[in-house]
């Protein structure tokens, strides 16, 4: 865009003209929710308030940033919740209360995540099992594996070295006083995924295969490779989220329960098109923050926790209906 000087006044037919930066509505919704939270709880503007919010939201945000890869490519990854559980349970089993083992346990978990992602991708690409079924099957299998490994009752706790990522705040930062390591992880992971999705060929290929796999194939896109990569990214994000959650939640066999649907909901709130073709990493992260903000707000208002599920279900459907409505109005098929 920099070298060539096609001026935007050359319309019609001039490229890149009139491209008003369209702001995704999710950012306005998020801003409104944050204002609402601040009004109901003024402490929120203190660093401890918003930093803790961000820290709590980080695992879901990371998960959503990974899930969006699979959604843009046209599928779903329902195995991420169980992979979180496996990461937490598996780490505690491998660590066995030995802090020195952290350095190899974490790579081992990433290796497991890589394997899960590859298997998901292979099953969908080559066995042609719809990702919904394939990853649900993976979910059952991984949950079973986590139970089997821990004989149903995980023991022990995770050592501080492992919990560092999820729990520790780095103190003494000017202006904001402290910054949680979890937030740094989110920033690093998020910018990586942003770059990969929005600046590389991979990102455009993901959009293409989600939009129209047949056309993509006829244009030479290596469908299988791209699809497998999407599942791998999603699985690695689940492992990362699992490591963070291991930091602030304890070890149990239900840490990951429900995260797959929350991640999908976050992506949908972020304007992602289900069954592929459209979606953005920052918007999905914003969607995750929005969902967390809604839960926080419900909490402040004093609504019981189960209401969350109802709200989440309704949000999921409403977001999809709104997206369909907007699309139909914009014209198209």
């Amino acid at each position: 865009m920099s070298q060539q000087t096609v001026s935007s006044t050359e319309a019609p037919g001039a490229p890149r003209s009139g491209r008003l930066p369209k702001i995704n509505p999710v950012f306005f919704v998020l801003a409104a929710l944050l204002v609402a939270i601040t009004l109901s709880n003024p402490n929120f503007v203190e660093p401890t308030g918003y930093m803790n919010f961000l820290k709590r939201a980080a695992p879901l945000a990371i998960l959503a940033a990974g899930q969006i890869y699979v959604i843009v490519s046209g599928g779903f990854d329902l195995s991420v919740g169980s992979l979180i559980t496996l990461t937490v349970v598996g780490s505690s089993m491998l660590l066995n209360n030995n802090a020195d083992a952290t350095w190899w346990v974490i790579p081992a978990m990433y290796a497991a995540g890589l394997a899960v992602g590859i298997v998901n991708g292979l099953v969908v690409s080559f066995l042609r099992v719809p990702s919904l079924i394939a990853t649900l099957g993976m979910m059952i299998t991984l949950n079973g594996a986590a139970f089997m490994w821990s004989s149903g009752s995980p023991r022990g706790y995770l050592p501080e070295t492992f919990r560092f990522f999820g729990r520790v705040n780095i103190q003494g930062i000017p202006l904001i006083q402290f910054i949680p390591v979890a937030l740094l992880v989110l920033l690093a992971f998020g910018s990586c995924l942003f770059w990969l999705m929005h600046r590389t060929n991979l990102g455009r290929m993901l959009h293409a295969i989600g939009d129209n796999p047949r056309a993509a194939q006829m244009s030479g896109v290596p469908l299988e490779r791209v699809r497998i990569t999407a599942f791998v990214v999603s699985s690695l994000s689940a492992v990362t989220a699992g490591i963070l959650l291991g930091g602030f939640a304890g070890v149990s066999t239900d840490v990951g329960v429900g995260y797959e649907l929350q991640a999908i909901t976050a992506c949908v709130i972020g304007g992602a098109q289900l069954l592929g073709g459209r979606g953005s990493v920052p918007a999905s992260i914003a969607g995750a923050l929005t969902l967390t903000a809604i839960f926080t707000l419900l909490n402040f208002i004093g609504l019981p926790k189960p209401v969350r599920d109802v709200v989440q279900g309704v949000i999921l459907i409403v977001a999809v209906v709104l997206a369909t409505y907007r699309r139909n109005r914009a014209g198209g098929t």
Partner: protein
Amino acid sequence: MSTPSPAIEMRGITKSFPGVKALKGVSFSAYPGEVHALAGENGAGKSTLMKILSGVYRLDGGAVIAGGEERLFTHPLDAIRAGIAVIYQEFSLLPERTVAQNIFLGREPTRFGLVDHAAMNREARRVLSLFGSAHRIEADTVVADLDVASQQLVEIAKAVSLDARVIVMDEPTAALNEAECEVLFGLVDTLKKRGVAIIYITHRMREITRLADRVTVLKDGETAASFDHVPEPDVIVRAMVGRDIGDFYAAPATPQEIGDVVLSVRNAGNERLTNITLDLRAGEIVGFAGLQGAGRVALAQAIFGFSPFTEGEVKLAGKPALFTSPRYAIRAGIGLLPGDRKAEGLVLMQSVTDNGMLTARALSALAGKADATPFASTDQMDGLLQDLDVRAGSFSQEIKALSGGNQQKAIVARWLALAPRLLIFIEPTRGIDVNAKAGIYHLMRDLARKGTAIMMISSDLPEVLGAADRLLVMRAGELVATFERGVSEADVMLAATGEEAVAA
């Protein structure tokens, strides 16, 4: 015509789709006991008009009058109840159901509230017997097991069994051979005698002469001409095309322009193709004619590696070229513009530039920069799109909103970025405005002049005759004839249908 009031009348129908004005005030009527032919090129609005008549689409303006009163059809059921039956070209039969089940779709005969399968099969056999013994179709066969012609006849039986007052036939002979056509024509005569109004859509002049009482020609969503008699074929053709054929197509290749063999196929075949031998040369546009299902698209897909050859020898620029996936074929320098742009060509939700960049990016490293591939940068692509005169508000807008011609040019740009040796066009002008068609023909010629070998597959026979330098005819998976430029439409049809032995 003794009957005073029409069985069906459409007045000033308008209909728009996003980006296209499909119908601009078309009027049309059909009287009981007459055949009213509706002619026009692809994309002239014939199918849209009939879909409004049958309640599939809702009209934007105008009125439909059936049985003397104005009707608003919001669901096909409304049209069926008003006595209108349509034989569609597309979405028509359920392949997994039997012939009888398809004929009585949605109105199965029942006894005590339960579907009476025996009565249904009996009734289906009765309707099918109208075709005579020439073409036997069993009522309990699964439709997927029938050949294309039989499926077309089932489709016709479905409409006939409705006992409709108006029957619309949308190019019913596309898949039929001569004998089957005669069966159909006899049936049309029978229906006519019974007082059924028949709207017959076709662009074959022979059928219009044989069957029609009146003719209406549509062009670009408007009535171009309407005749109360059947005029000479060339009068109809002129109304359809609306211009001199001369400047419509680009000038043919001169002998000097035709270069070396780019692709050579020897005795190749797969489950749908037998014994294919052909040479495609640089600078030459080779047209492929044949009936629906004759194997033209299968041949393109085999060359392109989508459903590969399983035997024989293929060489691209002298190197072995039996590709097993489009990706390999593309790498070696073959491009393909699919016939169904929406289903196989475009990524509709992405921008015009992204659509153009698709193949360039697909062949580059996954982690490489999306804006600067080794084949083309986005800026170069935008320049290319401009050179091809792709009209869009902005190249960063979704390609969905562009017209068919501009979408097609964006796909052409996709391949130009790769500079392929061989470019395969399947139905290059389907769904494209008449004016934009000429642009596509000239574009193909320009590419050929630059040394690309062009393979052109089209069901629009006049188009292939006008645009190609050489014409190959396929039938039942085989190449059956080769014609030089200037051959008559009739000779090609004879070769394609196989009625007479044709010497090349």
